């Protein structure tokens, strides 16, 4: 994955290669969370710190790439108008390729719609690069995922808990039908609160 973003991507778009320092995380932890923290992306083994919860029961080797941080290292001209999701995740076992958008909600933003746009725009940008597209083709499970850490209310008010109860009905997130992703061979998932993306061998 490093070569693709160190060489293929910049070459395809006629850009100088940016440094990948601090952008790539590797883990085979059975449970971890990903946090979007300004320019940085953190992978936490401690529960409750991240926006995306990931279960990796078969201890797959996973590479998580800070895509937003990566795009931010290009020239302003290149960045202009470019959608950038938070991370890309690939398993070493030729199984998973995931684009992820993380949200810790902002008041009254259309966060979910915005997330879809970031994911789709990012997907189209990377699929344009033939080497990346070929790499993705080797991964049969391809998904774009929106992760949203959910709100809570003061203890005496259970309104948010009540409205968010639907998310307790399906631990593995919601698979939604979206032709904009399907036409590129990708599924679209939404994960709210404690919903967890499970990656198995």
């Amino acid at each position, binding site marked *: 994955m490093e070569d693709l973003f160190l060489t293929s991507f910049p070459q395809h778009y006629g850009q100088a290669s940016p440094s990948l320092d601090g952008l790539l995380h590797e883990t085979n932890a059975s449970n971890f969370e990903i946090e979007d923290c300004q320019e940085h992306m953190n992978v936490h083994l401690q529960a409750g710190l991240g926006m995306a919860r990931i279960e990796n029961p078969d201890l797959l080797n996973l590479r998580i790439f800070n895509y937003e941080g990566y795009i931010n290292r290009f020239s302003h001209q290149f960045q202009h108008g470019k959608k950038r999701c938070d991370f890309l995740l690939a398993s070493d076992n030729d199984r998973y390729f995931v684009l992820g958008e993380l949200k810790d*909600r*902002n*008041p*009254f933003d*259309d*966060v*979910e*719609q915005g997330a879809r746009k970031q994911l789709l725009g990012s997907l189209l940008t990377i699929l344009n690069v033939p080497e990346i597209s070929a790499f993705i083709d080797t991964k049969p499970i391809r998904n774009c995922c929106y992760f949203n850490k*959910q*709100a*809570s*209310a*003061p203890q005496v*008010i259970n*309104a*948010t808990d009540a*409205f*968010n109860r*639907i*998310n307790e*009905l*399906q631990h*593995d*997130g*919601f*698979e*939604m*039908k*979206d*032709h904009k992703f399907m036409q590129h061979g990708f599924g679209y998932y*939404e994960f*709210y609160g404690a919903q967890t993306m499970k990656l198995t061998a």
Partner: protein
Amino acid sequence: MKESIYIRNLGPIHEINIEEIRPLTVFIGKSGSGKSTLMKAIALFRWIHKMHNIRSFLKHSNISKSPFRFRMETYLKNCGFDKFINASTEIEYITTSSSGREYKIGFSGKKLRGTTSNADIIDQHDLLFNKISFISEYRNVIPLWADRGAAAAGAYLGFYFHEGFNDFDIASEAIKELEFPYLDLKLIVRKTHFGKKFLVMGTKGAEYEIDLKNSSSGQQNAIPVTAIAEYYSKHFDFDLAINSSIIKFLGHTGRLKDFKPIQDLSDIQKKVFIHIEEPELSLYPDAQCQLVASLISNCFLNSHNNIELMFSTHSPYIINYLNLLMRANDRNSLIDNAKLPYEDLAVFLIDEGSNQDLMVQNVRLVNTNPLSNPINDIYDRYSRLD
């Protein structure tokens, strides 16, 4: 029959593609997002399809000259679409029969297509007669309008109001008394020398009797919706209605003697399409759910006619309640006398002029999170004030 619709550049609608309209199809979205425009466009094309079926039936029955012409300009004006249409507006409504034959009615370049040539004629085995009902958000005026009767003659409150009022008026010819257990009341229709009198009577020990026009706003909204659904499910005589229409059209052509019906009208497929804007209007959350349960029970579980239902809503309660009704169906149970198969439901978020399918694919649920966002936003903002 499968129905689909594609709409591009119609007022607030940028591009909407619904591959399959389900027996219960629901639209949610912000005010002005295009929910009503979409529902009105679907109702309009269902009506054109109906008229095209009548025309096809007559052609098969030796009446080659159509007794009517499609006047799109008038229809679009009735829908309030006259300002929404431009050169790039495109609508394609497709029905697919059980035999797999597709019938397309299109509108593009400001012209209607798919209803004029011989190739467009609907095969006699695929003929469908339908009835369209549209109950608008202005239905709370129905009780007052009904009370004024002849005094309101000549006044005009818009095409969709009058469509809903006419349906309520016809329904009240057939319904003398209708119970609303979730509102603890019943509607009584009394005929007097001065026309019909609509009364609301308390039940479950609440002894009162008031005019419908003086009942609560929630009651004035819910009663017409339920009465119309009750009428189409239990009292509407489809065969009689079609016979009357056919005879009327034949009368226009003066060709009654040439009429050789290709098949018995009673053997032709029939469907009632009911469209409702915001069924929840002025109702407390649990009554919103009970109203939807009564509609589903009436239209799908206890109907003499084949009915499909479509509504727009802003209610998170109703959408979450649909999950309960789907669960009831999967558990072979009833909730408030209703249940709903997952396969019979479609829910779309209309946003930024496009549609987003909210049916979850990996579990039999509607994704209700878009309607839960405001409550999360409220407490996010609350937390930020710490």
